[in-house]
């Protein structure tokens, strides 16, 4: 049965730091799954496929989907699809679930986004193994340093100040004050926030390392109509993109050029003509604060170099016309694959009118994004639309 795919249930465990997390990854995933199933109004035995994301090297097990799945209590022979694309694993989970449902290959898919960062003893050293081993790793390029390239070029091209970059962090932490699943809020000390990490990134512009899991249930719409107690949120656009491998392939670091490609593709699929008008809420994967500006511009919300102005006029805060990262985004909680799927989970709840964060009143259509790989080679986009009255 081919059908539209809807997000029918969302489950978040609370987020904390890996050090304070008393639960194992298996337990957290099961807890998130239980919450999502309950929210969707379905039983474990209704699930025909589970999609689980991981990032190899961060886990205690290779293909960790295979060790997590047995803890979910699903029926024997349930399909397990392990997805591993680095920082976009989480975004791919829901997109792939939608593809399976639309194809008639599955009817109720459970997406599990585990906490990824609990295991490694030296997390930053592990993250740094993600940079191209032979060409770029020997040059002292870790994740945060890759994140620093873009804002430096952006500042120079458009005359953006350090304070304007920091303003994104401050706005998102203010949003996070209202998110019970956030781990960092506006209580972050200013002298801490100002410490320079890699120019122009300061500590207050860099995501924390968090622990927590998230699950989604993606269901064929005709079934969800019958069984889900929630307004139906249809996935109307689901796409991904890869740039070249080495950082030098990015060409113009003042823009996320590859996201512009993705935006055109996913907007075409979802029938979006004017992004700022047609979208009501954005959750963008922003592990480094300035990326929010570059992403808003590449997603065609405004012109090049205009995003700082949107923040200053309040358009991207709660109550503005294009609220962005009402959850606080990864700057306030980044539990790895769970952090990558969090944008989809938060947009879905906004469109259901059930946001645990500040609700964007009347939000009907939203965009969620994830990114990863070296120098943000990979991105995913998911457009969701409320189809219930």
């Amino acid at each position: 049965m081919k059908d539209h795919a809807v997000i029918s249930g969302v489950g978040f465990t609370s987020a904390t730091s890996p050090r304070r997390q008393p639960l194992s990854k298996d337990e957290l995933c099961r807890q998130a799954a239980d919450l999502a199933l309950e929210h969707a109004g379905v039983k474990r035995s209704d699930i025909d496929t589970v999609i689980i994301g991981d990032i190899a090297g961060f886990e205690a097990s290779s293909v960790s989907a295979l060790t997590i799945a047995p803890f979910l209590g699903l029926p024997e022979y349930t399909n397990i699809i392990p997805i591993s694309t680095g920082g976009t694993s989480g975004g791919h989970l829901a997109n792939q679930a939608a593809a399976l449902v639309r194809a008639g290959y599955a009817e109720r898919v459970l997406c599990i986004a585990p906490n990824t960062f609990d295991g490694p003893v030296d997390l930053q050293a592990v993250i740094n193994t993600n940079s191209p081993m032979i060409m770029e790793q020997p040059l002292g390029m870790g994740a945060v340093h890759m994140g620093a390239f873009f804002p430096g070029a952006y500042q120079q091209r458009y005359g953006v100040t350090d304070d304007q970059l920091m303003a994104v962090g401050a706005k998102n932490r203010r949003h996070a004050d209202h998110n019970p699943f956030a781990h960092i809020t506006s209580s972050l000390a200013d002298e801490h926030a100002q410490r320079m990490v890699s120019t122009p990134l300061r500590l207050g512009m860099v995501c924390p390392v968090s622990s927590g899991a998230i699950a989604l249930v993606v269901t064929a719409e005709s079934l969800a109509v019958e069984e889900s107690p929630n307004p139906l949120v249809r996935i109307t656009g689901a796409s991904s993109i890869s740039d070249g491998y080495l950082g030098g392939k990015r060409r113009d670091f003042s823009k996320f050029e590859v996201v512009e490609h993705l935006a055109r593709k996913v907007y075409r699929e979802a029938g979006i003509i004017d992004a700022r008008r047609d979208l009501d809420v954005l959750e963008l994967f922003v592990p480094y604060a300035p990326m929010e500006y570059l992403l808003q511009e590449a997603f065609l919300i405004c012109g090049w170099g205009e995003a700082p102005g949107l923040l200053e006029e309040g358009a991207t805060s709660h109550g503005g016309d294009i609220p962005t990262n009402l959850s606080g985004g990864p700057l306030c909680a980044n539990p790895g694959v769970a952090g990558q799927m969090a944008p989809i989970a938060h947009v879905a709840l906004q469109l259901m009118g059930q946001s645990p964060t500040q609700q964007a009143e009347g939000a009907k259509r939203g965009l969620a994004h994830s990114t990863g790989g070296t120098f943000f080679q990979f991105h995913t986009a998911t457009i969701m639309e409320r189809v219930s009255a």
Partner: protein
Amino acid sequence: MPHYSSPSVQDELYIAGSSWLKLEDDSGLQLDEAVFEACSAALRNAGIKRHQVALSITSSLDLYDARSISNALTAPAAAGYLNDELRVEGDGAAAFLVAAAGLASGQADIAIVVASSAPEVGYTSEAAVRGLQEHVSSYTFDAHTSRPVGLTANTVLGLHAANRLDVGRVSWAKMVESTAADINRGAASGRAQRAATTIDAVASAPVAMAPLNELMLPASSAGIGAIVIAAGVAGRRCPDPLARVTGWGSAVSPSPGRTSWLTNPAGAAGKAARDAYRRSGRRAEEIGYAEMTDLTPAMTDELAEALQIRHLAASERNRTGGVRSNHPGIANGLLRIIEGAELARERTAGHNALVHAADNLMGLTSSTSSVLILESL
């Protein structure tokens, strides 16, 4: 459980082209270069240009590739540059089904699937590749309960074979005989990892995981496969598609903690096959050839039973020797599909072939079985 409707015209999927690159010690290729070789050969075979491809699906493992997020290196080489891309951390046949779903969902008209088993250990001999596969397999088992007690994929295969010998469901002599026959059938084909052998040589091969000896284990090899899949008219307009995919199914076998992986290890294959038959509208008796992944000769009969292909003569099963001739790790599923599709291209229109793949990441436990039914054109 899902209820399936009959296949619609929109679900017409074609295997438009394929290629297999056997990796030797002196290939001299970096991983992405090898992926490019395989993918460009598959596109040429399909008569399709890269710009027609809108979806690129990879099956690979970072721990084979010695790189974190190894698909970052290979995606642009797999026609993924500025395209929709995804890496499935599992068998190539599972990746094939993800690509097929992408087409059936309307996401794309043409997809490429690449499965890579190119272990970065410097050598491609059976011993070198198996060494890494077993090492990584150990890391795939749970770190707290299974790994410390020595479980690997091949120890699980040994546990199963021991049980089947103990209960008299298989005989040692038959296992030796079928292993020799498999290896010799494959040795005549171009992709073999093992040279021709004799029954005596098989009987006296070094024991690996008692009761299984080295030659009864899958013939670990290195290779990269690529398949171009096209939907509807995009497939029919290809110059010489290999086969039409009429049915598919997949299911995962029980985890190590359950008893059913040992009592009924072919259960997942059986479920996948039933789904594939139902979707294709074909009956088991209509299947004329099968390409299957019987990981040891102790599995062969119960797997054939589960796939409902016992009626097939030995010559109509695994004509190139199956996994005892060549088992390229997680790329095995794609190799089995390529073998099945190449056969389908040779047979007359309407002939049906069944392809079964199962990964050997954790032996017979937590293993994804995928079944396809291919129709000759």
